[in-house]
């Protein structure tokens, strides 16, 4: 509800001049109009082209619970981890990093499925997600990608662990097929969630559709790199990827700050705005600086600090965007303004 201050109307203030004015109006028109009543809280919301229907929101707020933003974080990290794992395996020949990455991908896929099923209104019907495939629905695409990714990353991790005890050709074959497949599926998995919330009626989300998938994906890369570092991997490539991700995140933050649109209000002002900013600093400039120092001095502590900061930033960012979506859906003005000034 909007509350504006009661306008001060000098003509209604009791004064000698007002009494004389009344007398002249009465002489001229035969009657005097009262100033009217202004009850406390007036003016009340009303139905008008400017205020919509009593300033009531047109859109419904997202009804997703805490599991969904957490899934955005976990799924993003799992998808990116699968790609990093295969790169480590086939390009860098770093077996420990490859194994850790496969395990992170598989564990992330399992946790993701659990989180998504937990958010459903009817969790026992989760298999209905695989009834149809609809390319026009990012959630349908995502459900299929996650299902396939879970299978492949699970098989890859299984092959990796089993080959320690039973290094047979079929086991290696499973890993060699499922591993690259999980990386191929990790590419859409790590950032489709940006398309998912971008292709909605919520203004702050759809106004950012051009960068949200990139933003969410890079945030996933940032957290995958950081998780692998915290597991004890110190390959320099991880630091470089972390640096690149933090640089893109910094750019995204600057890009957001520089744009001024009414639809961006929820990521700039109020609690949701500050949460977005905190997430941005934790995943952008802060780890970028720490990683540059780490690369220059070889300080391991700096890399670990950067990793912790990135992970925290990545989580905060997903919750911030969900929060901003709720705030944005409460805006009754924007949906009525779509296309204003556009030739029809």
């Amino acid at each position, binding site marked *: 509800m909007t509350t504006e201050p009661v306008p001060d109307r000098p003509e209604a203030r009791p004064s000698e001049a007002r009494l004389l004015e009344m007398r002249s109006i009465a002489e001229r028109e035969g009657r005097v109009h009262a100033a009217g009543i202004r009850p406390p809280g007036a003016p009340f919301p009303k139905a008008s082209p400017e205020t919509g229907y009593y300033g009531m929101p047109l859109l419904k707020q997202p009804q997703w619970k805490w599991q969904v933003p957490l899934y955005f974080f976990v799924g993003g990290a799992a998808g990116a981890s699968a790609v990093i794992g295969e790169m480590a395996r086939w390009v860098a020949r770093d077996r420990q990093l490859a194994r850790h990455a496969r395990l992170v991908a598989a564990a992330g896929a399992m946790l993701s499925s659990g989180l998504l099923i937990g958010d459903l209104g009817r969790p026992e019907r989760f298999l209905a997600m695989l009834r149809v495939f609809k390319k026009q629905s990012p959630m349908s695409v995502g459900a299929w990608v996650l299902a396939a990714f879970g299978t492949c990353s699970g098989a890859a991790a299984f092959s990796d662990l089993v080959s320690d005890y039973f290094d047979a050709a079929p086991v290696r074959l499973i890993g060699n097929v499922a591993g690259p497949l999980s990386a191929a599926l990790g590419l859409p998995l790590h950032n489709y969630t940006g398309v998912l919330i971008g292709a909605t009626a919520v203004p702050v989300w759809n106004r950012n559709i051009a960068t949200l998938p990139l933003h969410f994906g890079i945030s996933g890369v940032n957290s995958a790199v950081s998780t692998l570092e915290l597991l004890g991997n110190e390959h320099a490539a991880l630091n470089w990827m972390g640096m690149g991700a933090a640089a893109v995140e910094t750019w995204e933050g600057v890009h957001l700050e520089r744009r001024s649109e009414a639809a961006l209000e929820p990521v700039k002002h109020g609690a949701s705005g500050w949460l977005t900013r905190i997430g941005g600093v934790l995943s952008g400039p802060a780890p970028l600086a720490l990683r540059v120092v780490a690369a220059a001095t070889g300080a391991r502590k700096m890399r670990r600090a950067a990793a912790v900061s990135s992970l925290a930033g990545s989580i905060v960012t997903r919750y911030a965007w969900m929060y901003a979506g709720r705030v944005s859906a409460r805006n009754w003005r924007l949906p009525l303004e779509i296309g*204003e000034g556009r030739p029809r």
Partner: protein
Amino acid sequence: MSVTAFLTDSTLCIGCKACEVACKEWNGVGEDGYNWSGYSYDNTGSVGHSTWRHVKFVEGEPQPGLGGNAGEQLSWEFSSDVCKHCEEAGCLEACPTGSIVRTEFGGVYVQPDVCNGCGYCVVTCPFGVVQRNESDGRAFKCTFCYDRQKVGLTPACAKACPTESIKFGEINELRLAAQERVEELRGRGMDDARFYDPLDTSVQGTHAFFIVRGDPRTYNLPPNPEVPTIYLKTGWRSSALGAALLLGGSLLAFLAAPGGGNGKGHRSSRR
């Protein structure tokens, strides 16, 4: 089977809420509390999971005058809102389970035996109609009385409407009837009567259109609703760019980085 539609004429509505009651009784829709919004005689505020027909009470701003708010200085319009059953429906496109379907009558129908309550339709409806019932878990909205239409009956709300403010019929006939009605009203001096059917938008028209007075925004009817699928192309382009960055960036990083990393904990492979 003919393609059908609702024409809701606010110039005939008397705000009796028979449509709301008929809808609730026929469809067994749960109660939504005995609340007053404080905005005229509205007590539900909007359509939602437990309100499939919603009568809006559009009060013009009271003009302070002699003796308070004199009757002739207050305009009062009523309009029964409902799911628009868009030609290009955001909820239908987004539904990942295929629970939301287009019926043979052109309506948009949520199959309650399929819906798993993922909540994606809620954020993809440009009219804020469909909503998840948190106690039931599934999403609900107007069914266009699919069960009644199946056996040739008029939807409950239209049948119960005492003034024929809610008309039901074949879509093209109703569109013509709406144009004629607006002409007639204008001819009688009601210059602000207009027909709301967002045909030239990405929603591409609806199966529930309205005759309103003045600016449709007063009734929370967006002049240019957008079906969110229009954002898909841009979104997937950004996604592809992100994927290329990850693939190229990680390849470059692993090719260029010194194999041994920068300390212990790294064991390089023999392969």
